[in-house]
């Protein structure tokens, strides 16, 4: 739960764009910081899995996952250009200003996973919200058991954070298994949906004492959940982070409410057990 807040909850704080890095087509990473260092220091206490509201004045505001771990120095968003606000963000140049408020949402309860194996299953840009969690776990490596990442994208060119994934894999801190739907020039890795990685020869996937994190497009989500349940995962050990159209981020505007849950304050992190009870398609 977020602490009680007497501030103006809708008032964003000015932020400056430091640099922009291309990730995959249509997706860029925006490194930014608050103009006011005090705001930056306050913001840095976010938890993996939380999100922020990003303002492009004159265009609007949108919710964005926080891909950095609080243990990392820089703050950044990784954003796909899809609507008017994200397009406006993509137009920005270094030193341009925009505004941010947050962090919001429940985030992943990282303490609860201590002593457990962590299995991350991501599809497409679903890796963005999980990145925070992965980095946090690697930074606190001794607290967690085995860490595995299963990640799939449509084509090799659409695999995100590749440099990061390769770097984290080095030294055996975690295992990373990649797959693509369609191989392209030079791809000698696995081809197939993410779920097919679980049964690939040479992959040893722990189920007992393991928490799985699933994030990706709805169709991928449905199939991966099926696969995980078939492998013996318990519904309350499968985590996901949901997204919805959102205006306020603080449980007031009503857009993100599904079933009894306001995604912005009760989520965005839910167990599959909770998601099932929400009673609507995710």
């Amino acid at each position, binding site marked *: *739960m*977020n*602490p*009680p*807040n*007497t*501030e*103006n*909850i*809708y*008032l*964003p*704080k*000015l932020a400056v764009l430091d640099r922009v890095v291309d990730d995959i087509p249509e997706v860029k990473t925006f490194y930014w910081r608050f103009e006011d260092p005090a705001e930056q220091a306050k913001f840095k206490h976010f938890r993996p899995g939380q999100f922020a509201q990003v303002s492009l*004045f*004159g*265009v*609007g*505001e*949108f919710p964005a996952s926080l891909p950095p771990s609080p243990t990392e120095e820089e703050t950044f968003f990784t954003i796909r250009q*899809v*609507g*008017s*606000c*994200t397009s406006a963000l993509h137009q920005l140049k270094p*030193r*341009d*200003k925009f*505004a941010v408020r947050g962090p919001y949402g429940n985030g992943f309860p990282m303490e609860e996973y201590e002593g457990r194996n962590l299995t991350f299953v991501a599809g497409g840009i679903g890796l963005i919200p999980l990145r925070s969690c992965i980095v946090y776990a690697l930074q606190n490596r001794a607290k967690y058991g085995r860490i595995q990442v299963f990640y799939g994208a449509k084509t090799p060119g659409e695999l995100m954070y590749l440099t990061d994934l390769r770097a984290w894999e080095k030294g055996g801190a975690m295992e990373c298994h990649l797959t693509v739907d369609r191989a392209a020039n030079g791809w000698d890795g696995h081809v197939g949906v993410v779920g097919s990685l679980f049964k690939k020869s040479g992959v040893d996937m722990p189920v007992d004492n393991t928490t799985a994190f699933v994030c990706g497009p709805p169709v991928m989500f449905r199939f991966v959940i099926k696969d995980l349940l078939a492998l013996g995962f318990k519904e309350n050990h499968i985590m996901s982070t949901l*997204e*919805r*159209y959102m*205006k*306020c981020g*603080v*449980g*007031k*505007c*009503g*857009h993100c*409410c*599904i*079933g*009894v849950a306001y995604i912005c*304050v009760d989520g965005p992190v839910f167990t599959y057990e909770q998601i099932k009870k929400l*009673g*609507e*398609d*995710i």
Partner: protein
Amino acid sequence: MKARLIDSGNVLKIVDLLRARGREVIAPFCGRGRDSYFDTVTDENRAQVRLHLPNPYYPPKRFVFPHIERLMRVHGKNGAMTIEPACEAPPRAIFGIRSCDVAGLWHLDRFYLGRDYRDVYYERRRKNLFLVNMVCTDPAQDIGNDCFCLCADTGPAAREHFDLQLMDLGDGQFMAVAGTAAGEELFSEPIFRKGTGACVERRRAILAEVRKRFGTTTSWFTATVRYVSQGTILEKTWEEIGNRCLECGGCTYVCPACTCFTVSDRQVGPEEVERVRIWDSCGLSGFTRMAGGFNPRRAVHDRRNRRFFRKLAQYFIQRELAVACVGCGRCAAVCHGDIGMPSIVEMIRRAAPEPPKNEPAQH
């Protein structure tokens, strides 16, 4: 709670007293036919303020949650950008707010000021608002065909959450009840005089009589709350309800307990942008549509389902201490498809829920 008596001819002097205390006073006026509306009292229109009239369709919630409300102004471009929060909360009083609408405001209080975050825009306006509640006692004027406050347990006389409550005793006197210290403060004015035991008895008798003078509209929530909470309403029932929805959003805009809004930026000068929030409706198709076009709630009946789940599910009732319906009957009056709250409650109550699994076969 302290009570006083006041002559009918002096009741409007309460408006004057509130105005003299620096408040903008909002009061109900008659338009054409049975049309009525809330407006600011001025020296010119003061004599037209009505004590008995149909409750306006356009609910008074807009005085704490305006249909379009400026949240902030942003000046300048990249060089020197400043964000200036808007802060408009004039001291106001609503004179003649009905008991159902008082309950509506209380619902908004619990919602906007509850849980983890407080909505400061709402809070400022609400703190500066004085409520003079008028009890509905005139069956011909005050009580409409669609009123069902009896079922929602909000009227005809509010029990709390007002500053001052007025009730016409029908004998040239009104009884005034103070709900807060601010309301009681008015009793020092000479227009109020001490009540008698007979007046209290008369008040009780009138209320008992008024309860019998309501129309045929009822909304018995219990069974519907159970079916909604258990999720046993058949998809077919929702489809029937959805087929009758014209997706105009009217029910949400007239609802004193609806809270949803959208946020929009608009250019107001060459280097000035204004961010406003605007009432939104879960009945409209774009309500859940995300950038890129994916809409998790595409079918109209899913959106109807959503509205009534939010208002009637046990989970929210426990959290907010009441169904999110105050029985004002506005949705029933404005809906062209006749799927306001009373009709929905009845349709769900009458439709067969999902049959119990172990029921023997019918012959």
